[in-house]
């Protein structure tokens, strides 16, 4: 699904160059939940930008779903992002002027989905994160946890094959953060590929695979997790409030 081959990202800062990513080779398969962990400045965000097709590597190859995206132009990357990637950011990154529903609709707007269908899909995504009742509110009228749920709904709305979360719990309190993580685990359980970026080992532990990065290099990789069987997949974490019988409709708990 994701294959990086000898990827470098080098910034030229006048005389000296900064190797934000210094020769990374990495493969992440479908249905994996991987955490990229590292200290501040280690190159996590740069890595996520490249995986998320927000940026292209200075050299090296990046194959996404067997398609070489390392030399794509702006608009081609935009299309790839729109079709295959969902982002969850630390700062939620909701558009303040748009209400919750309109925010969640955005990826579908750019996909060219018709209004009626679009609203239906956006409501479905909001229902999934348990916040459909707030769809006419503005983001500023919601709590941090609620806003992050909206951003998760937005990431899900376009039905992407990969969800990228950059410090998704960074701005949340411990309890809400935990609920968000559990929800991500549940999504992974439902078959979504999830890449989690964090500096917090406590957060990274929720993933089955931990990739440690330092000075732009991978220094530790807990290994390719073996793709699970259908039986295993439906049976994972089993934690807290995940209702197994109706996984699609399960919420993240009303306390968020």
């Amino acid at each position: 699904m994701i294959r990086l081959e000898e990827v470098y990202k080098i910034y030229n800062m006048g005389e000296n160059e900064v190797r934000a990513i210094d020769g990374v080779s990495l493969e992440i398969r479908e249905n994996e939940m991987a955490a990229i962990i590292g200290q501040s400045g280690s190159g996590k965000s740069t890595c996520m930008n490249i995986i998320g097709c927000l940026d292209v590597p200075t050299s090296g190859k990046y194959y996404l779903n067997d398609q070489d995206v390392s030399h794509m132009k702006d608009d081609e990357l935009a299309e790839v992002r729109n079709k295959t990637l969902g982002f969850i950011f630390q700062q939620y990154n909701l558009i303040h002027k748009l209400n919750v529903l309109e925010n969640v609709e955005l990826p579908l707007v750019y996909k060219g989905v018709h209004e009626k269908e679009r609203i239906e899909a956006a409501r479905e995504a909001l229902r999934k994160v348990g916040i459909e009742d707030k769809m006419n509110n503005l983001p500023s009228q919601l709590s941090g946890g609620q806003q992050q749920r909206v951003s998760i709904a937005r990431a899900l709305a376009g039905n992407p094959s990969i969800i990228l979360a950059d410090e998704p719990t960074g701005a949340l309190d411990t309890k809400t953060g935990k609920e968000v993580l559990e929800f991500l685990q549940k999504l992974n359980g439902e078959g979504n590929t999830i890449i989690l970026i964090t500096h917090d080992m406590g957060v990274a532990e929720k993933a089955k695979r931990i990739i440690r990065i330092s000075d732009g290099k991978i220094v530790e990789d807990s290994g390719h997790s073996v793709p699970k069987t259908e039986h295993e997949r439906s049976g994972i974490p089993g934690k807290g409030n995940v209702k197994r019988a109706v996984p699609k409709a399960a919420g993240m708990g009303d306390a968020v």
Partner: protein
Amino acid sequence: MNFKQSFRLAIKSLKTSKMRSFLTMLGIIIGVASVIILVSLMNGLSQDMTSSFESMGTNTLTVNVMGRGTNRTLSVEEVETLVEENPEYLDQYSPRVTASVTAKYDVNSVSTTVIGVNEFYDDMQSVAVTEGRFIQYIDTLRRLKVCVIGAYEAQELFEGADPIGETVKLNGSSYKVVGLLEETADSEEGSDDDVIYVPYTAATRLADNARISSYYLTAVDTDEIETSKTVIENMMYSVFEDENAYRVTSMSEMIEAVNEMTSSMALVLVGIAGISLVVGGIGIMNIMLVSVTERTREIGIRKSLGAKRKDIMRQFIIEAATTSSAGGIIGIIFGIGAAYAAGVIMDMTVVPSWNAVAIAFSVSVGIGIVFGYFPANKAAKMNPIDALRYD
């Protein structure tokens, strides 16, 4: 990005920051309003002038003898012969001798214009008599001191009494009133109602100059007026042998000249007003640039969700065009209102042109698109990572 959403967003941001939107639109409002006001007033002016020329008859030709460098004059008989010899082109003729006089009756007096004409003049110029009669052949033949007075003179001199048969003094000599003209312009001073007709033979005595230097002729067919004009010109040249000694003008030429003059005047004025439209466009560009910077993060978010350059481009251009066309609409409404107000205050005819309204509106939309292009392009070219990191 669909049009509807961009449009709704643009309207929303116009509404949320009303003061800023108003100031942004101000240049466009002023520009559009001044164009509308100017065009309405110029239109009114040209309509007034055209209709006053038209009331003289579009088939009228005037001949003026300047008499420069020659003592040769054009006699009534020569003009008469010309008309008689060209019945397929020329219909009627009348000499036209004007003089400024003081008209007195009893204790009342007015300063007015006396026009000396012959018996055809009322037909040629559609002058209607309500009481009595117009100048007749016998009057001119015998140089009778009779006159036909306008409604203004009737009102000022006779104050409602019947003027027919009375005697007025024109520059001291007595003239008998034989006819009263129909009122056409509310009996205002200086209007078509402020006139006295006398036989041209009598008028030469009232005028300082005994020569007849002006004739009115009518063409048989308005469409053939140029040929009629040539006929007159040929005769004139054979008499004077100098093109500068006379001038032949057709009324339709005059109307054309007036229209040309007013429309080129309008063009200059509208051009000046157009400068304020450009200034308005720059104002919009300025605010759009600020808006693009303010919304860098929003642009980053949209791009991360899959917005292409053209999507961002379209969003900002629609926003700029919405702002400028809102300004345009306000300008149009304000302009029409102000034009009518100016018309009342300055006592001018106001004719708003729907063409001008349509053009003003399209120009304001166009200005939004043109001046929104640069900021929109700036937004569209933003790098999503830099934009996302911005705060």
